[in-house]
């Protein structure tokens, strides 16, 4: 028995680059359970249950149709308005969920974290998984409308490019998680950020071609939009699903670099804060 015993050494010093990802893997069952729990708990004691996952984006998209489509008369690159907004909403709410749920990691879980040890990264990873499942359900709705419009010949998706969708999803999830855990690490010290985050994320949406296509933006503003790391994956997503939009390998690569940098910094800061945040929360 002794030879199989696990050895742990806790020291005052902390190796910043020791990310302990192997430990995270050992706790994979916990990740799945947490993901499941967040679902069960959200829809317990609601009448419509998971139906909200359809209703919510549908109603939002209808509002967008009225607001941006009919009143502001923004272009949708020739795609039926409802489908355009549904698609944008699906991909954006996935990203936004990754940021906002993770931004509250430390403060929301302070009680649990204060009582028992497990790799804290379990919590952000399960948040991203949960967001992915919600996105998947929301995509069923999008697919329904897409099938209708595609048969009617109103949209021409790039079916082959659908193969890249898992990668797009992964990138947005990783980027969202990176940003989220950086914010949550800073929130342990400055509570302001928790207020800022919901506000910041909704502003970020307008700085991303979600309710309008990138093609309508020209000049320096377009450059600015492309600097936003979310722009490239969102455009790629729309290009595959709806067959419109512009994809540039250069900006996609840049976006990936930002993503990896964000998640790396995030995990490093997160692991550092994790060690002693109980003393300050």
């Amino acid at each position, binding site marked *: *028995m*002794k030879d199989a*015993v*696990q*050895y*742990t*050494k*806790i*020291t*005052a010093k*902390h190796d910043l680059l020791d990310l302990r990802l192997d430990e995270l893997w*050992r*706790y994979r*069952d*916990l990740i799945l*359970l*947490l993901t499941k*729990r967040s679902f*069960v*708990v959200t829809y*317990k*004691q609601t009448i419509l249950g998971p139906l909200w996952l359809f209703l919510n984006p549908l109603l939002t998209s209808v509002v967008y149709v009225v607001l941006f489509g009919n009143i502001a008369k923004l272009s949708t690159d020739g795609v039926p308005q409802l489908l355009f907004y549904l698609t944008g909403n699906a991909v954006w709410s996935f990203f936004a969920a990754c940021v906002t749920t993770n931004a509250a990691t430390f403060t929301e879980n302070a009680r*649990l*974290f*204060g*009582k*028992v*040890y*497990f790799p804290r990264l379990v919590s952000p990873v399960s948040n991203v998984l949960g967001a992915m499942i919600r996105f998947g359900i929301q995509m069923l709705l999008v697919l329904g409308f897409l099938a209708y419009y595609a048969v009617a010949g109103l949209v021409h998706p790039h079916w082959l490019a659908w193969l890249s969708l898992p990668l797009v999803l992964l990138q947005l999830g990783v980027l969202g998680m990176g940003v989220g855990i950086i914010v949550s690490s800073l929130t*342990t*010290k*400055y*509570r*302001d*950020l928790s207020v800022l985050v919901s506000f910041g994320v909704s502003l970020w949406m307008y700085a991303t071609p979600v309710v309008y296509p990138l093609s309508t933006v020209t000049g320096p503003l377009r450059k600015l939009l492309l600097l936003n790391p979310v722009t490239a994956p969102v455009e790629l997503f729309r290009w595959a699903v709806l067959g419109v939009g512009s994809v540039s390998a250069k900006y996609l690569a840049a976006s990936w670099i930002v993503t990896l940098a964000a998640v790396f910094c995030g995990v490093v800061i997160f692991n550092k804060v994790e*060690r*002693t945040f*109980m*003393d*300050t*929360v």
Partner: protein
Amino acid sequence: MDEKNIAIRLSGVKKQYRLGSIGGRTLQAELQSWWAKKRGREDPNLRIGADPRLAGQTFWALDGIDLTIQRGERVGIIGANGAGKSTLLKLLSRVTAPTEGEIEIWGRVSSMLEVGTGFHREMTGRENIYMNGAILGMSRAEIDAKLEQIIDFSEVREFIDTPVKRYSSGMYVKLAFAVAAHLQSEIMILDEVLAVGDMAFQQKCLDTMRRAAEEEGRTVLYVSHNMNTIRRLCGRCVVLDAGRVIHDGDVEEGIAAYMDRGLGENEVDTSLDDKPRSRSLGDTGLRMRRLTLEDKITPVYAEGEALRLCLRADVDRPLADVRLRVTLRTDADVGLGTSWSEPMSLSPGERTIRVSLPLDLIARGVFYASIGLFRADEIGRPVMLDHITRAFRFERIGPPVWSTSAHGFVRLPSVRPTVE
């Protein structure tokens, strides 16, 4: 000592905490304070009356702990509140990291610093077993294998598919303990978790842990204020005081060391200057100096006598609405009760405070008393001015027919029967 059989080794472990408000400040407040400081003005965020010297002051919750625990040992950790017990357990269960020193652990640790950690009210008992087990580091397959055993042990089989929000607190504890006890861990850490739950279940838990240590070679670290459970479970006792180990070894000696810590036997006139205080007090403008049990040669009280205390304190500034608090604990360290005085005003200088606490309700036994002076802040929370745990000891003698183990320490008021 056999190197191979070590479960836990702590070398020079220290943990520092900062006093005053830390964390949870807003960025705005921090900028404001910084700006005011820069222009030589008073910090607008300073709490009125708060001592600016206190902020940023640090203290060592653990001040150099060296401890080696062998596999299969059952170690009880005792110490007064603030001695560092909880901090030590937090470090061992990796909730927070040490400031200095090194902790080595051989084996998986399952810690129960609280009953039902990670239980979710909306989920059923069964779902919570999986959740709780996973949080404590078990894989799904391991929990599957142990599920029946856990349910059996918990004694709540009928309710296992009911959301735990419908459980009584006793059922809750049973389920939680059942999960922790059946974990595949080599080291178990428990903090006061058995304070709840019925007597029979407590005994069952203690026996389970004892067996786990003796038969499976699991190591148990147990913190409690209940000396009887320490006696029943532990084979070794570590006493902490002010962040240091003051005793390590025999259980009875440890309990005695803890009980007599700073307590002169049979004293009726005690200087309070050297008594340990909670280190988070700082400068409050008041300090207790001397305590006298009036009209006594030995601190023994017979029927009809009141506990008459005379407390001398140095007061630095006028303090209004100050109350005196006396808490009594039995010699097994079970809380018996607390008395609050009516409010008084203290002007600066050397003050003498006298109170008389009737002991009619107390039947018999040896008691330890903590005394403190506090005042309510703006929102009514008590703010301690000075407090000494186990400041003095006294004995109440009662009728020999009164057995405290059978009848308890308190004699409830007599009742008048009516007969028809």
